[in-house]
């Protein structure tokens, strides 16, 4: 009985420790998360002052496409042909790599590879009739056929990213060598011109694609350098981390000055190489890259430090063993550092992706509270949410947009979890 009471009071003490922080989390994280979701089904800008239940129409409004210049399926058709072309070629290449030195697939793969390569040579001519239904059926048949082989290919499974990159690469190739008519890309871009929310997704994704890989690459390099340098370690550590300490407003202000068209140091440095000055801050196509440069600069030291802490935690014995085996530094990186670092890489990937999707302040300061110099070229998702909520006072619509952002982040994080699940090695 006493023991029972004692146990209960122990539990209560445990919960008491949680209370302050938990209250804050409930009040300012969990409850708002639910409340936003609820709000996203209401229209809050009514003259009556009451929120009116509107169902999914906030979401529908966000993704309205307006009048399209051409049919969706035409664009889709072209894209599909290109995609299957890229897919088939990539499979063929991976199959060829796979079949080297293996008896099992040796006989089957060439059967697939040769006709595909032959077909791809005539692709430019064939794609001339891009709209031809037989053409599409033929390509789909090849796609299905090659997909059948994917199941048996282990090399492909262990190099998913490479495979996706290869598809992307061949897609671009297909776009340029074939009949450059229309593409899903053009369609989405056209829709984005008319719909500022789709524009904001477009810009944000563009930013993330530039920002995240470069940030990870540079911060990994910074982490490796900080670990391997024999002298001045702490100097470089301080130097790399310094930008992170400054506030984004101050940093954006600083880069506003560095990017200045007439007197900025960047255009001056370009002039050393005879490059004419670039209008960094007043060009729609350079808006997101400019913001990305700034963001990479701001955050690479922070992520570098996280990489460094991961590197420090790798057991030195692995390297000593590798040295005895005669592994060179590249091999040591590829077979020890990279696999053992994968949990950190994964962490940095997730965190930097989440951060990158929330880009806002840089644009706000660099472009004087406007979403880019013109044509909404700097309208990011958070900017859209901020604008809808703060300037237009449409809480419901802003919540819906926020939930779309959350959805995108969640889906991408899940994909990252799934794709890296097998490869992240948690055995440090």
């Amino acid at each position, binding site marked *: 009985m006493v023991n029972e009471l004692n146990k209960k009071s122990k539990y209560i*003490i*445990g*919960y008491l*420790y*949680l209370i*302050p*922080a938990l209250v*804050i*989390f409930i*009040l300012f*994280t*969990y409850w*708002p*998360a639910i*409340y*936003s979701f609820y*709000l996203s089904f209401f229209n809050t800008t009514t003259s009556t002052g009451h929120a009116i239940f509107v169902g999914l129409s906030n979401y529908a409004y966000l993704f309205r496409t307006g009048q399209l210049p051409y049919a969706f399926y035409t664009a889709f058709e072209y894209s599909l042909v290109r995609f299957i072309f890229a897919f088939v070629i990539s499979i063929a290449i991976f199959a060829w790599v796979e079949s080297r030195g293996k008896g099992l697939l040796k006989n089957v793969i060439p059967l697939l590879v040769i006709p595909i390569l032959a077909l791809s040579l005539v692709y430019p001519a064939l794609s001339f009739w891009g709209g031809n239904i037989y053409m599409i059926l033929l390509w789909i048949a090849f796609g299905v056929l090659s997909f059948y082989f994917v199941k048996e290919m282990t090399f492909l499974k262990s190099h998913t990213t490479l495979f996706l990159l290869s598809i992307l690469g061949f897609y671009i190739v297909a776009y340029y060598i074939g009949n450059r008519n229309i593409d899903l890309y053009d369609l989405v871009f056209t829709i984005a011109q008319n719909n500022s929310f789709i524009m904001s997704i477009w810009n944000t994704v563009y930013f993330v694609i530039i920002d995240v890989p470069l940030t990870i690459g*540079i911060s990994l390099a910074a982490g490796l*350098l900080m670990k391997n340098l024999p002298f001045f370690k*702490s100097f*470089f550590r*301080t*130097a*790399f981390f*310094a*930008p992170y*300490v*400054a*506030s984004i*407003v*101050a940093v954006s*202000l*600083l*880069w506003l*000055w*560095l990017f*200045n068209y*007439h*007197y900025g*140091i960047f255009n001056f440095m370009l002039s050393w190489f005879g490059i004419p000055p670039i209008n960094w801050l007043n060009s729609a196509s350079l808006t997101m890259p400019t913001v990305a440069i700034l963001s990479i600069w701001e955050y690479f030291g922070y992520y570098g*430090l996280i990489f*460094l*802490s*991961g590197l420090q*935690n790798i057991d030195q014995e692995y390297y000593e063993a590798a040295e005895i085996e005669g592994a060179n530094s590249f091999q040591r990186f590829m077979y020890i550092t990279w696999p053992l670092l994968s949990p*950190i890489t994964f962490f940095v990937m*997730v965190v930097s992706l*989440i951060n990158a999707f*929330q880009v*806002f302040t840089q644009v*706000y300061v660099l472009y004087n509270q406007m979403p880019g110099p013109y044509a909404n070229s700097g309208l990011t998702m*958070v900017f859209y*949410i*901020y604008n809808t*909520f703060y300037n237009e006072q449409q*809480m419901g619509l802003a919540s819906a947009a*926020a939930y779309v*952002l*959350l959805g995108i982040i969640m889906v991408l*994080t899940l994909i990252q979890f799934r794709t890296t699940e097998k490869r992240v090695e948690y055995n440090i």
Partner: protein
Amino acid sequence: MKKQKKKIIYFFYYVAAVILAIFAIGPLVWMVDTSFKTNSEVLSYPPSWGTINAMPSRNLTADIVKTRAGQSSNPSALSLEALLGSLSTAQTTTLASPDTIAIHVLGASGYRGTGTMPRRGTLTISLINNEGDLASYPTKFSTSDFNKVVSEISSISPLSNDVKQSISNLSQYTSDPQEYILNFYDAFLYGSNPIFSRINFISNLLNVDGMSSFQDQLAIFKKGIGPLKGIELKEISKILENALNLTTNPSVKAEISKYLNDITLYLDFDQFYKAQKQTKFDQPIELAFIPKSNQLKIVKAPSIVESAYTSGDQIYITFNNTSFVWFLNDNVSVRANYNFWEVLANFFDNYVSAWNSAPFGIYYFNSIFVAVATTVLNIIFDVMMAFAFSKLTFPGRDKIFMAILATMMIPYTVLLVANYLIIHSLGWINTYYALIIPWSATAFVIFLMRQSFNSIPNDLYDAAKIDGASSWRFLWTIAVPLSMPVIITGALLTFLGSWNSFLWVLIMTDTTNMRTLPVGLQNFIINSGAIFNQLMAAATFTMIPVVIAFLFFQKYFVSGFFRSGIK
């Protein structure tokens, strides 16, 4: 052999590290550098590293104001009534005494556009004549000579129409020699459409029939700055005499002689004007700024200098009974000298002006208060929660921990709208609560601390319990000191997050009194325009506390990261 290879590899490592370090701190160095520069140095191309603000002296580009219209009066020498009058009628009234010369300072040398004069130090002003010597002024002005020269030039004819017109206009001033001289030079050289304006005078000359053969000789005079100088006029008159001899056409002859007479008239008068200036300045004028006053103290000056003051970017020097018209053709050189403290003041000038042009004091206080409060609450709450997750047992512990960890995946921008409504309904908009309370627990810090507490052996906790220590006491006297690096890391991260938070503060507050530095800085950017030296100064001083905090705690910070072993 192998050692050699290793050396090469290290060499490349260092090259890469240096490049990356330049990429990282180069912009920050440039920011601090820019913050010390003058306006003119910021807007100069190519950019340079140094700044004249660090120099003990500098040359200021300056002009003598050649008309009286722009002069405003010496406010201290006016009656209150006159002062009010001059204020209400803008700058059009010319109340200045004719004995006051106005010097327009264009700023530091090499500057184009309006400049600001540093209002400290001493100014050495030298009036210099065209030969490069110190200028001279008349001590014995003879009115009879003046009358003689006026009647002399009035008798010259024929003259070109412009000159004829001007001379007849001037005749109204014959009783007032100074006014006559001023208007004479105004008409010929310095007015809005002067007779001896380079392009017009030469073009008019070339339009005369028969002069086109002198095209080559005359066109040279079109090049140059300002109106035609005395020497040039003499050369032109020689060419004209030559032309006069060559032509036979009487109408052309008459036309040319008109121009020739114009020049002769001017040179005659100029001769008289120069002859009057007999006494040379024996030394330059040295003036010192008086703090918070527009009067200038005369440090060292020739005896005729009576007083001096400044207004806007002009310096006014009043002479004793000597009109400013006697320095119309002179140049001025202004050199500013500063002692050590004044150099220091110049150096940090942008910081002072930036600080004063927005309520940065309030922003600073708010930032420090909010960041410190957030950090303290964070440490307390996070330590408690992390300790419970690590060392205490109760049902659902790990599930709650996972739920807390999951919040790291939810971006706070997604919750902004709902949070605004919640804080609004709590009545916290525009209060410190809105800036502090929602941020007083951080999932990432809880995670870091839990990792750290996990590394404390459970035996230690059990031993403490047996000794009669409560879990609360164990936490604060043993567990926390043992995980100091991680706690400092957590504190720095939350401090940094709070200090740099922007969107949240922007939305949750709307008055100056509640805003923190990032939002204040953003307002300053919007309001001040593109004065990049002051903007950089403001950016620099918003960073200073966090930079100091980081440098001070850096060691713990790094080891805290390692210790936590993010896995």
